[in-house]
Each structure stands twice: as structure tokens, then as C-alpha cells.
């Protein structure tokens, strides 16, 4: 794990989760990046999400 000041001297390697345009911006700047094809957990069902959250505690 790099500290903030170590990060300032490192090559950024970026994980993008969410808007794909931010991932495309990384590619455009020749910055290594991986885009996560994210989907809402439990199909976005609030009741199932609550159960999942309890299980992961």
C-alpha cells in the first residue's frame, strides 16, 4: 500500500467503477486501467440488499 506521498511518485494504475467515460479518459491518457462491469447487487432489491449487508458483517 502506497502512502499519499509515495503515490505522487508512482505510475497510476486505476480501477474504474461506474461511469465508463472516466475509464475511456484513462485510456486516452495512456494510464493503465481496468473497468468493472458493475451491476447492482441483489438486482437492486432493497430487502435482499439488507440481508446481504447483515450477512457480510
Amino acid at each position, binding site marked *: *500500500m*502506497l*502512502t*499519499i*506521498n509515495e*503515490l*505522487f*511518485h*508512482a*505510475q*497510476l*494504475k*486505476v*480501477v*474504474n*467503477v*461506474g*461511469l*465508463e*467515460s*472516466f*475509464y*475511456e*479518459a*484513462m*485510456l*486516452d*491518457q495512456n*494510464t*493503465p*486501467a*481496468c*473497468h*468493472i*462491469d*458493475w*451491476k*447492482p*447487487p441483489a*438486482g*437492486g*432489491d432493497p430487502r435482499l440488499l439488507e440481508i446481504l449487508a447483515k450477512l457480510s458483517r
Partner: protein
Amino acid sequence: MIAYNEIRQNAYYDSVTLMLFSSKLGEIPGVREAAVMMGTDHNKSLMMNSGILKSEDAEKITANDLVIGVLAEDQSAVDAALASLAEQFENKKQSTAGDEHLRAKTMDSAVKKLGEPNFAIVSLPGKYAGTEAMKAMENGMHVLLFSDNVSLEKEIELKDYAVEHNLLMMGPDCGTAIINGVALGFANIVRQGNIGIVAAAGTGLQEVTVIIDRLGGGISQALGTGGRDVKEAVGGRMMLLALEALKNDPRSEVIGIVSKPPAASVMEKIVASLKDCGKPVVACFLGADSALIEGDNIVSASTLEDAATFMVDLAQGKKVESCEFTVPVEQVESAVKEAVAGLQPSQKYIRGLYSGGTLCSEAMLILEKAVGGIYSNIALDKKYALPNVEESVENTLLDMGDDYFTDGMPHPMIDVRLRVERIKKEAADPGTAVILLDCVLGYGCHADPAGALAQAVAEARAIAGDRKLVFVASVCGTDADQQRRSEQEEKLRAAGVIVMPSNAQASRVAARILSAI
């Protein structure tokens, strides 16, 4: 009228991609309404309200399902919309099919594929974003958390973890950062250099970095914190950590800080940290009492442009110097004279329609000195809070990136439709004399905002008919940005807009015009 529906199960796309798709469908002749959305409860109710989704269909749709709804005059318009959509999906598929594209299903597999990633950009819907941001930090990544609607408790939890592990946790609601020359989020391509900035103001950071670039200066690091960081409850946790990092960064010879005024207790801590940093500092707390920001090594700036100018002056070892206009004053005076000539007696007011919240605040601070209180959805004084955001009152400036406008719609920096509609609405008001605009460029932003605004200007003039309308704008960006600043400025000028080199100067020109009416 034909209502067409289609549900594609388990096909997830992000909201910006889909809104851009929807926007293109809406332009097809004969299409009255079109929406391509994920089936969240919020989206389903939006689609039901506009008549493109039936309630019996809505029940079986989940947030993982893609919903296509088209309301069109006839079948041929529906067919044209579907053909256009198929083409857009195909283009999307092809644009992300190359070998250089690395994709994963989960954070864990992304970490494996990339091999010790050190940074994450998280822009998921707010209720999921905090969890993913925490996962990223637990995997050793610094984070830019773009999402809003993350709870205060979650923000504090994330930032406590970040402080404990010396990680950047920029956000929630952090739009912009530049790290090691890489533009992250809504950010511009600027020169690298010896100025390190921390900001609790997204477009504020964009405006400052692009002006620094224009003046020949450069950025070592530009860090964001999210606006809520400097409120009492969060206590400046990330602001203070970021300042400490810039203090310890040998490449950041000058430090800049840009924010709306922090809570008093937070301001005290920030000023103490700045005084102690051993480097020259430029502080721009828009609207704050400059007496609170004194220190031998600290210069206070009252506008974003002054902040950028002072940072470059200090970085080049010069004395700081404020400047009202960077274009010849005669040119300003003649533009004002020409603008005022021919206005009708009813035309007395300014309407500012902003995509950048900090730019809107800066404009209000400048304008209120000339014309008094400005009505707004982000009013500087509660007395001038707009009772109904849909209706402008006297002099009104709107931050159209505020939650009220972005609920179910993309941010106005990405999608200009709402701003275009509002420009036309203000044009129809006989009281409107001046319309003030920002035009923000960079990664994440609209591909041609000036082109879209120029078209809106022409439509607005047609609506106003005999009444002349004065448009004033500034472009926030650089020639290295994909949209190219000089080309964007030219498009606005060609549409008869007075284009100034900064938002502060655009606001001053607008103030002069109003004073001369």
C-alpha cells in the same frame, strides 16, 4: 401516438451512457419522448409519469434490467429510434472491444487483472458507492469518489479509514483531481509544474488549473476533497491530510487552496496548517472574510482567476498582482456600450445559467457588488433563495448542476438540454437583458458544449424577436482538451456572444452592462 416498450433483462449500463443514448433518440423526427434507463424505482416512476411505461410492466422490472421506452407519432419513428439505438449499442461494443481494454466483473478480479492497482475512481449510485470505495481502500487504493448521495456517516467512516492508512479519499461529490499529470473525473489537460492545489470545489479547481496553464504555470498535484469535507461534521479531515501531503511533496513549491468558506472551527485548523507549511500559500475561500486567512506566508485571493494568477506569480518568484481585465479596457468599454445600445426599457436583469457551482458562486460575489442581492438556488444570502427554482426573479443566477436539476438527468456539463431549455425560457421573459453562461471543457464533459450553446443562443434570439439579448460567457478549458478551448470560444463569438478569458472577467463585464442600463 404509439408507445413502445422493451425490457432487456440483466443488461447493465451506466447512467451517463444511457442518457446520451436517450438524448440522441429524442432528436429523431416524430419521436415525442424516449428513454433508455436502468429499471430502478426512481427511473420507473419517471417513465410511468411520462407515459412511456405501463404500471403493470413496471412491477416485474429490476434495477439490473434495461428499459427502453419510446413515445412516437407513428411506427416509422419508433423503427428509426430502435435502429439508431441498435447502432449506438454496436458502436459502444466496438469501441470497447480492443485488446487494450481491461474489464472485470468485481473489484477482486480487477485487482488481479491490473496487478496492484493504486487508485480507484468510483462513480456508482450513492447508496452503493461507499461500499465500493471502502473495498478499494482495503485493497490499497487511493480513491476519487465522484458519487453524491453518500451519507455523512459513511463519509466520516471512509475518511477515518483513509486518514489512518494515509490514503487519499477524495469525495464524496468530488468532481476533479489531477495526480501525477493524469486528469481524473471532470478535469482538463494542463501542464505539469510546481503548484500543488487542494480544493473543496470541483469547477473551482478546473478554473484555477486551466488559468495557471494559460499563464505558463503548471500543476504538481491537484487534489479534491468534496464540498462537505470543510463543514463542521467532517471537520476538514481530507483537506488537512491533503495539505500535509503537499507540504511534504518537494515538487509542490507553492500551495493553493480553493474552497467555499469552511466552518469556523475547520477554517481555524486549515489556517494553522497553512501557516505551518513552510511554503508560500495562496488561499481562495470564495466569499470569506480575508482577515481570517492572515499569515506571513499566505496570500488571500477573492476570485479564482486571482488565485491562479497569484499562484503563478509566486511559483515564478514574482510579487503577486491582481488584474481586473486581461484584455484592453477600451475593448471592454466598447463591448459594454454596444451591448447596452438598443435594449428595451423592460430589460433590466441578468440571468446566469451555470453548469459549475463554484463558478456560479464566484459570479454572484462579483455581481452583487454592482447590482445588489442575486436570487439563486445556491443564494449567498438566504434572503435571496429562489422560492421556485423554475421561475427566475429579478437578477437570478442558477447552479444547474445542483441536485434539483440533476435528479434523473445527467449533469449539465455532460448534457446541455436542460440549460438550453432554460436559456429559451429566460429569452421569453421581457425583463431579461443579459444571459451569463459558463462553458466547461475537459474529460467527462460534453463533446461540443459551445456548439450546443451557440445553437441555443440563436433559438433564444428568435424567441425574443424584437428584443435584443446580450450573451456573456467564458470557456473553462485548455487547447489540449479534446474540445479545444480556442475553437469553443470561436463558436460562441460567431454566435454573437461576448466571450471573456475567465469567469471573473465575464462576470465583471456583465456587471458593467447592468450598471450602464
